[in-house]
């Protein structure tokens, strides 16, 4: 099964209006998945990652419901068919 990205509302204008993007190739890690996302949807990937390839400070990525910030980060291994959710952090009070 394909790995899928959940795309939040503010980034859907860069994903052809879609809320979900299924990758055609099978990435092994989150970094590989973001590289694949950036090939077809650079507008989404460049707002998740800065120009140095780092996840922006107020963006959280969840793999199968787990926030990777507290785990292996971009090296998080991806199970087959998993969902990667891109979520803006609740930054503030």
């Amino acid at each position, binding site marked *: 099964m394909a790995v899928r990205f959940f795309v939040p509302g503010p980034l859907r*204008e860069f994903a052809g209006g879609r809320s979900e993007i299924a990758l055609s190739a099978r990435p092994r890690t989150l970094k590989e998945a973001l590289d694949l996302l950036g090939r077809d949807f650079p507008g989404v990937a460049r*707002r998740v990652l800065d120009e140095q390839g780092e996840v922006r400070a107020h963006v959280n990525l969840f793999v199968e419901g787990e926030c990777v910030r507290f785990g292996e980060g971009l090296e998080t291994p991806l199970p087959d068919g998993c969902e990667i959710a891109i979520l803006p952090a609740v930054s503030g009070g």
Partner: protein
Amino acid sequence: MAKAKVKAKLPALKVKDGDVLLLVGTMKGAFLLRSDRARRRWQRSGPHFAGRSVYAIAYDGRNERHRIWAAPKSLHWGAELVSSDDFGGRWTRPEVPRISFPKETGASLAHVWQIQPGLDDEPERLFAGVEPSALFESRDGGESWSLNEGLWNHPHRSKWMPGGGGLCLHTILTDPARRERLTIATSTGGVYRTDDGGESWRPRNRGIKAYFLKEPEPEFGQCVHKVVRHPSRPDRLFLQHHFGIYRSDDGGDSWREASKGVPSDFGFPVAMHPHDPETVYVLPLKADEFRCPPDGKLRVYRSRDGARSWKPLTRGLPQEDCFDTVLRDAMTTDEENPAGVYFGTRNGRLYGSRDEGGSWTAIEDSLPPITCVRAVTVRIAERRRRAPARKTRRRKAA
């Protein structure tokens, strides 16, 4: 790389030839206001980019364009440079942000602090000042941008320290008399100038005192808040420093303090009169931690004699219990005669004067915190103005 561009749509302002346009950046988006030349009534559109901070906004009227540039920053998704050719009806957002630091720098764009069109006879050239302090340049009308490596690799750069707003390059001055000259200012770091088109840069801070550093007059490190130049006298500069107002008559080679007559030598903005190189405006704030108007009185100070003496301008401005602040890019003048002067405050008030500061009215009183204000008189070429009229005649004939 995909070339597609996304255009967000909002009702555009209907702007006519000769209208005055105010571009207002805030912490929660941008607002555009237009008036006829009387500048009594204003129409507003916005917020554009609601929820995103806009520290830099500019108008590029060269080559018969009517292009507004803005630099919204999302706390989540980063900063980008966007443009509109129809007064805010549609904004063009490239998929990949236009300004990016090269991989080898290890830096990433935090904010765009300044957008500056180049000289009139180089209509495709633009500059942008960003955080972390760096200068970017475009030579294709803003489509692509490149880092100025001469400044980025300057040996002083590693010793610049961030001010309260961050390590930002906030001032870019072109010089109509010397094509290869460009003057920038960064907080903190001070004033730097290139005379060879950006290949090499030299500090230009001689005479600017920095009490917070070991040497009283260091070569660099000054906390320069803003610098302005009058286009008709390019060697005449005025500068608002963290400590003091300064004037230069030699393009920044040397500076002389010009703070005598203001209630505080601290402040952020400084603005030039559009026609008279002797007239300059500042807005003093109580230093250092309070940063509100001295004595609770919101006063613009105007000099008519090249900053040798200053007079307060108070008519229409709150003169008691005012605890407001005006940021470095939030005061400007228009091109009219008599000149209009405008400033926006952190409490979201936008004040305007259409008599060179003699009296003031609140154009807006509850915008989000205002970060930058620009004013321009819009020129619409004769042939463009006549085009819709011809269409109307054809329809009537049919």
